[in-house]
């Protein structure tokens, strides 16, 4: 637990450091008003079909927005918001959400399933990319504390080839995961703070 607190501190530091430069958190805050209905205040959504964006890495958020806009990731519900969005707008939004504090979701993870999920995560070497505590780095997303249902959906989509903007990495990772593995991992990840 101690380690998780420490890495959370580092994540916040990075987010803060990043926001001081090309990205404008205040501009991002204003633009993020349009996101609240689905992603919640400060990116802390309560509806698990919408991902928690608070403390997500800025680089990941920017690249996902870009992928939505340029058609590499499909999500019709995002389309109206991306129509007039510039590169700077995306940077600002990404900076804003990266600087927000995540709040725990309502999902209650099953401890036994979470333990199996951790063992599977160790086996699949997830933290080599997602970093210790799954806090993410650069274009690799933070998944610590993400909604159970959202994590399950993304992994199913990678496995089924419905989401393909991962340069093949998550497709390869998820290929050998069973439905039960995916659920165990989601129990584990949703409980990480």
């Amino acid at each position: 637990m101690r380690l998780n607190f420490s890495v959370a501190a580092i994540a916040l530091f990075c987010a803060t450091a990043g926001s001081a430069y090309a990205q404008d958190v205040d501009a991002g805050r204003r633009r993020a008003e349009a996101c609240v209905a689905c992603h919640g205040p400060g990116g802390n959504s309560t509806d698990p079909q919408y991902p928690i964006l608070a403390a997500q890495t800025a680089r990941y958020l920017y690249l996902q927005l870009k992928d939505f806009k340029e058609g590499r990731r499909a999500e019709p519900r995002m389309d109206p918001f991306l129509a007039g969005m510039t590169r700077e707008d995306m940077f600002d939004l990404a900076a804003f959400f990266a600087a927000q504090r995540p709040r725990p979701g309502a999902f209650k993870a099953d401890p036994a399933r979470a333990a199996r999920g951790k063992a599977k995560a160790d086996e699949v070497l997830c933290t080599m990319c997602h970093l210790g505590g799954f806090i993410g780095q650069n274009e690799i997303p933070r998944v610590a504390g993400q909604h159970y249902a959202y994590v399950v959906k993304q992994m199913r989509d990678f496995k089924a080839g419905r989401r393909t903007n991962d340069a093949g990495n998550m497709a390869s990772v998820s290929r050998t995961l069973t439905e039960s593995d995916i659920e165990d991992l989601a129990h584990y990840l949703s409980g990480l703070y």
Partner: protein
Amino acid sequence: MKTSHALAGGFAFAIALAATSPFAQVAKKINVTQPQLTAAGGQAANWLHTNGNYAQTRYYPGKAINTGNVGKLKVAFVFQTEVVESMETAPIVVNGVMYLTTSYNHVYAIDAVTGRQFWHYKHKMGPVTTFCCGPNNRGVAVYGGKVFMGTLDAKLVALDARTGALLWETQIADPEKGYSETMAPTVIDNKVLIGTNGGEYGVRGFVKAFGADDGKLLWTFYTIPENGHEGVWAENDATGRNMKRDIAAEKAALAKDSSFYQTLGGGVWMNPSVDLKSRTVWFVAGNPSPDLYGAERPGDNLYTNSLVAIDLDKGSYKCHSQYIAHDVWDLDAVSPPILVDVKNKSGKMVPGVIHGGKTGHVYVHDRKDCSLIRFSQAMIPQENMWVLPTAEGARMLPGANGGVEWSPMAYVAGSRLAIALNLHQPMTYHVEAAKYPGGSKLWLGGAFKAIASEKQWGRVAAVNIDTGKIAWKHDTAQPLIGGGLATAGGLFFFGEGNGSFNALDSKTGKKLWSFQCGAGANAMPVSYTTGKKQYIAMGCGGNTQLDFKRGNSVFVFALGG
């Protein structure tokens, strides 16, 4: 949750303070000269290079701490940095001042005897960073009155060694295209040499030389030539084992498209060696991009997975020797090469260069033409080589981390032993078709996964470079990553992911001393002598790649504390 916020708030405040508060400067003038750098391996006062000297032997000539008294080694001081994250630094010590780095490019100058901080530099990171394997930094180089560091946003910075003030910075490459820096630079003849990360993002690797005075680019050697990267269509690896390539299919693919040299990888992760007599720079180049999916890049993919020699003054090619052509396992060449005299095939001593491979072999080359003289016994189990990766995963040993990862070996001249830190991580190799995603996304072309039912462990192996035989081995509970240090006192120092920092008898491998750091001891140990007292320093901040427990401290030891 409350605790987390409070800690995070405190951390942010501490960072703000560090960036704005005036810190004490180093009282004495710092001026590291070229003759000092050249002669670094023969003196015990300072630790002036990442790996001790230009030959990179990581052999410290002092023997005040030795096999007879190492049991009395105690902590002299602990220096705590502000960054709790993976620590791979090799502190540089100059006239009693230690320069150490942390993840995210912080540099500290401290008193090497008391641990008192002189200054703290925090790099202003640009908005875009792209790197794999953790936000690491492996240290600085010091020359004249300047401290040089490569950064995660692919810059080279020069700091005032007395104050930590930024003197100049230069952009080495574009971080949006996957370039970043974690290695320490090497300074020679007023040039700052540095390679690049990015083999996991489709970069075109290089070694560049910058002017130490102003950061101006002097030359670039690309590890991927525009023409000829297909090589000789080698069917076997350097040890003679068939790699199961479909060379006819590769040739057909190359005939259709050979433009991929721009994204073929070949990062250079660790310091080069420098042979001043022949004015040659020796380094190893890493894996091709994408790591596991070879169909995108037909040919031998020169000079990936190779030992390479280039001219110090012009950066022009001299020779190379490739270990694995058309690698699809990420079993690349990372650990820094060491320059030593070696016995050639006819038994004559000749200038040589050795490299500890991820394959688990120590390779011994002739410096005349890069040719391979011999390779050692495998230091760790090898099985099923070279089975091709599959979508569902094919088991092969060693796993993709090695063997010997970036971990620099130490060389003990008297006993002719190269001592290497090894991993044993059984893995399956998975391939996935993947087009170049533009440089901003990890591009592995698959994955490697550990095998839960198979135990992982580590091994210190001492290899006689004249025979290739393992003289002794010392096994550890966890895979090993980090540097080794040999001393004239007959000792070999190394750390483990469980926090144990150890001294072995370098002749026998017997464990003589151990200290628990409380976080992964995965940096690179160094030694120095100030006021007739020998010190050993080791960073203990854990490791991202193997997810060893993070910390933030450098421990410094001396006899009696």
